[in-house]
């Protein structure tokens, strides 16, 4: 599998090794790191959760799309799940290709699509003790239908 979920630290050296190819003249990688703030709030740690079955198939699909769109040699993506501290590596993408242009393009495509499509969720734990699921809390809207009644009431 070229798309992987890992509970433990990502070995970027081993990942880079898997991409080596005598015909490749370029290697591009992306590292997503856990930073200490988001949207003005001090972040202490992160928690990633995945729907593994679908995350793996969707991740593989994205890598296959990248290989179709860009003439690259190899591509690999590894995403962490579980608890992560500030500075830790959360996601790693590596691409090797004949020339640098397609490696940059494919790497960018893969990380953008992974962030938008793969069922992985991030919970931020803030320094003030609060926590929240990114993209889920502030946009939450009640889907309850309005009450239908024949006339108005006031206490």
């Amino acid at each position, binding site marked *: 599998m070229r798309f992987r979920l890992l509970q433990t630290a990502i070995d970027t050296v081993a990942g880079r090794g898997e991409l080596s190819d005598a015909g490749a003249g370029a290697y591009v990688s992306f590292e997503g790191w856990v930073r200490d703030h988001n949207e003005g709030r001090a972040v202490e740690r992160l928690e990633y*959760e995945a729907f593994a079955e679908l995350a793996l198939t969707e991740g593989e699909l994205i890598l296959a799309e990248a290989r179709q769109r860009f003439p690259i040699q190899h591509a690999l993506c590894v995403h962490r799940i579980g608890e992560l501290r500030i500075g830790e590596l959360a996601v790693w993408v590596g691409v090797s290709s004949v020339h640098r242009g397609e490696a940059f393009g494919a790497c960018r495509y893969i990380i953008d699509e992974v962030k938008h499509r793969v069922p*992985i969720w*991030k919970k931020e734990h803030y320094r003030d003790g609060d926590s929240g699921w990114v*993209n889920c809390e502030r946009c*939450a809207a009640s889907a309850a239908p309005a009450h239908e009644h024949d006339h108005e009431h006031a206490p």
Partner: protein
Amino acid sequence: MSAPPPLHGLVLAGGASARMRQDKAALVYAGAAQLDRVVALLARHVNPVFVSSRAAQATEPTRAGKPLILDDPALVGLGSGSGAAGPMLGIRSAFGRFPDIAWLVVACDLPLLSDAALAQLLAARDPSRLATAFRSVHDGLPEPLCAIWEPAAAAALAAYQAAEGRCPRKFLIRADALLIEPVDRRALDNVNTPEEYAQAQELLGANGNGQPMQLRIQYYALLREQAGRSEENLETLATTPAAVYAQLHARYGFTLGREQLKVAVNGAFSDWAHVLRPGDALVFIPPVAGG
């Protein structure tokens, strides 16, 4: 303390169904007429169960053969209304016929009403108050048409109506009533229009054979926390992911609306209208945030 007054069931089926343009008691959900469904539901909790009806409706097939309490002609025309005091009239007619009985009153346009909701109401009953009722999840006001009315309410209702009062909800707002928060938040959604009927049918799986099926539901992230579990087996009449989510949304009070989610069936992205089969595994996917 003396024993609380005995409790009978009363299904209010005397409405004109004006906006529905067909008799709401005869609407079919999951293969059964609504009046039959609600009488059977009440009969699992109280005995006997009567159907409140206008005299003109007494021979209509859905009502005929059931124990009826017809609107008392002596009470018709009280208050300022032109017969719009339907529910009041039904409740007062029941008190007129059995003055020492408390009534579990239920309107016949609540197709999502559940055993759980009735059990909660009965467990909360306080016979020392005039009524025990749910608070609406929509506006916080009392729901008079799924409530226990104690015999002492009869005189107060008569006085209220004599003072031109017509609305049982307004009566309960001012009366000494015990109001409780419904655990089943969808149970009291009433159906007044053809559109609401279609929605309720979808929720109740009217397009299927009316037989419940077992589904496997897995929860992730915010939904896992709000459901308080990561998976469960669900027995449901719902036949589409949309209807299943509506049911779970009501049960757990999810803050995410369906339009914010994607759905997966058996490990692959699917459609909200996909027709489910027994044993299917569903995952509702909140907005993702990898990277």
